[in-house]
């Protein structure tokens, strides 16, 4: 099969990336203008909200390796913070978001502290208890939270200076969509930068091996608490956005099932990726809204109230299917598919020439540092153009030491 080969960072590769980004941005911006149906626009908005929550879970579980099923508590904390401040204290919606984020940062760090000693499946038990505790707390403090009755607020007021016309039926949902998508995009940008930063590398190191991370000077405890706090903040932000989208909360909305569904979204999308949160959120919302509607419309299970439960069965089976067949999620699957047609050759690391041996000497001389080199020695010369980048052969064999990932596809 004819494949196209591109070098990472070359002009064509850049153009391709920009083109995809432009198409993506165009789709996101025009999506609510294509339809006048309020329900569809609200669904798009929900996808953006849940994408933020799944992204937060991904930062904790996918990037730092700390499995959590307590995410629903933080989403709930953010949602209740927003609605309580709006209803009881008359705050504007957007001003409540920082408060919710700060509260969730603190709560997340508190939950992260046990994670310093508790690992693996034990930690999951703790987060399960967090998820089970939240509805109980909401019930206990029902004069603040509304308890079983829930809490309602007015829709967010539409500023008059926006180009969106609030007097058509789809106007207000469209405005909600743009505000929420803007905030969600900022959240994705922050996450993208965090995982490429020093602390992001530290998170990956902790995930891959705590022991070697700490041996290499990564402050494991601080990184873990940071990851918990960060992911809780994303959860809280998602909760606030959900309230902006539909200003209703009730105590059953943020239960263990929400956490499990967020985990479904994470796995379906792809756990070790930032962008995977978007297909994950689409799967999440599709499962929770459309499949229930379809089964009801088809009447396969009769007109019983419980026919919506088919969602749970399908989600469970879907999760099993993904774990067995596509553990890397949709993003990984698409990447494998892409490599059949397009191969991107990674860019060599900057300054690689200095590590090429001058004449038969070992590649990197560990036992005498570079600074102590005798002054008369030759400066390293660039290798001939057809020299292999790294000598990727074990002495005495002809097999490549390690296949690079793009060779597999």
């Amino acid at each position, binding site marked *: 099969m004819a494949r196209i080969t591109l070098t990472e960072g070359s002009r064509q590769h850049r153009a391709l990336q920009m083109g995809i980004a432009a198409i993506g941005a165009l789709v996101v911006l025009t999506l609510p203008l294509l339809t006048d149906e309020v329900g569809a626009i609200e669904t798009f908005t929900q996808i953006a909200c849940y994408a933020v929550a799944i992204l937060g879970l991904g930062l904790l579980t996918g990037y730092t390796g700390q499995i959590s099923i307590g995410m629903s508590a933080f989403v709930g904390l953010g949602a209740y913070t927003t609605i309580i401040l709006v209803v009881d204290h008359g705050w504007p919606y957007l001003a409540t978001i920082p408060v919710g984020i700060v509260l969730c940062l603190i709560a997340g760090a508190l939950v992260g502290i046990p994670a310093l000693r*508790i690992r693996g*499946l034990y930690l999951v038990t703790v987060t399960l*208890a967090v998820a*089970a*505790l939240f509805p109980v707390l909401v*019930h206990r403090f029902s004069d603040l939270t509304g308890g079983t009755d829930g809490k309602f607020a007015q829709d967010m007021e539409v500023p008059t200076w926006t180009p969106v016309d609030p007097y058509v039926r789809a106007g207000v949902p469209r405005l909600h969509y743009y505000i929420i998508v803007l905030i969600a995009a900022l959240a994705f940008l922050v996450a993208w930068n965090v995982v490429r930063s020093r602390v992001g590398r530290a998170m990956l190191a902790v995930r891959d091996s705590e022991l070697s991370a700490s041996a290499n000077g990564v402050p494991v405890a601080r990184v873990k608490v940071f990851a918990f706090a960060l992911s809780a903040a994303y959860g809280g932000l998602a909760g606030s956005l959900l309230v902006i989208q539909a200003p209703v909360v009730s105590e059953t909305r943020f239960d263990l099932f929400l956490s499990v569904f967020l985990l479904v979204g994470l796995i379906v999308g792809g756990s070790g990726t930032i962008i995977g949160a978007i297909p994950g959120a689409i799967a999440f919302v599709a499962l929770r809204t459309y499949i229930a509607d379809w089964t009801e419309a088809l009447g396969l299970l009769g007109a019983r109230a419980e026919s919506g439960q088919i969602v749970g069965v399908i989600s*469970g089976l879907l999760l099993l299917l993904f774990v067995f067949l596509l553990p890397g999620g949709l993003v990984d699957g698409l990447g494998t598919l892409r490599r059949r047609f397009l191969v991107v050759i990674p860019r060599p690391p900057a300054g690689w020439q200095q590590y090429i041996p001058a004449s038969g000497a070992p590649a990197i001389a560990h036992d005498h540092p570079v600074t102590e080199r005798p002054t008369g020695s030759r400066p390293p010369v660039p290798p001939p153009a057809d020299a292999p980048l790294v000598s990727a052969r074990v002495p005495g064999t002809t097999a490549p030491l390690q296949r690079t990932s793009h060779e597999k596809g």
Partner: protein
Amino acid sequence: MTTTVSAASPRPVDVLRADRRRTAMTNIAVVAGLLAAFSIWAIWSGGLSLYLQRVLDGTRNGVLYGMVALALVIVFKATKVINFAQGAMAMFGTFVAATLITSWNLPVALAVLIAMALSAAAGAGIERAVIRPFDPDNHLGIVIVTLSLYMAINATAALVWGNDPRGFPSLFPAGGDNYLALGDIRLYYTTLGSWATIALVVVALHLMLARTRMGLAFRAVANSVENARLIGVDVGRTVQQSWAIAAAVGTLAGCLLAPMTNLDPVFMDKVLVYSFAAATLGGLDSISGSVLGGVIVGLTIALLTGYLPGLGGEFGIALAFFVIIAVLQFRPAGLLGRKSQERV
């Protein structure tokens, strides 16, 4: 088996064993001391008979939490897998028993036994189909598989039997006047029955572990999977048997719990959290520890919510939460568990 360590030449195994026993005794003494202090205050404020009544009621729930914890421990001991679907599996088995009773008019005890057998078969099948392909150290994989089982089983039960709570007949004579009067306090037959059942289960398990070939294989696997495999134990089959036993024990616990609460698809969810607390408290790899942990958790919930009504009826979950965190934080091996050491 001697517990004293001879001064002349203590063998390392004996030293370790004595050390473990000493730690366990200290742990239990601390917990018992706390409970005793609270009890003195409770008797002083509310009278003896009320206190004893609450203790009896608390232990009745407690042994049942202990029984679910036992199911968790049986699975955990073998391969260090925590089964988050244990509650859902027990709930499903209880529904099967309820169906056998109402639709087929079977006697309660027979229906429970058949449901236990079916659960055991289902547990073995689940282990073979979705658990065995995973490395037990792949925590994310195990969590996802058991959580998806939890979700699928819950939803299937809701689809088949509906969300409305229903009653479940008790295995033992229940009702307002079926009790032994001991002075002022009432010892209900259901309480006695729960005690007898858990005693029977624990004795049967101990006999199975100590006397049978299957139990020997199980102990070998629990000790070390690699070593067991090297000496020719069929590890897969042994783990499968442990899942089958756990599923049967869970269903039994579900059938005993259902008459007290009501039977609906989520009735085991809260119990599962209590059982996690019980299993953690007892030490996740100790069979007697899980029962002890269950009794302590049930007792504490009954006493605290009984004497401090300001805490609210849902306080049990919060208590379970604090128990889980405190135990894992300060004494991860629990009361009777084996300390885990990691070789790096």
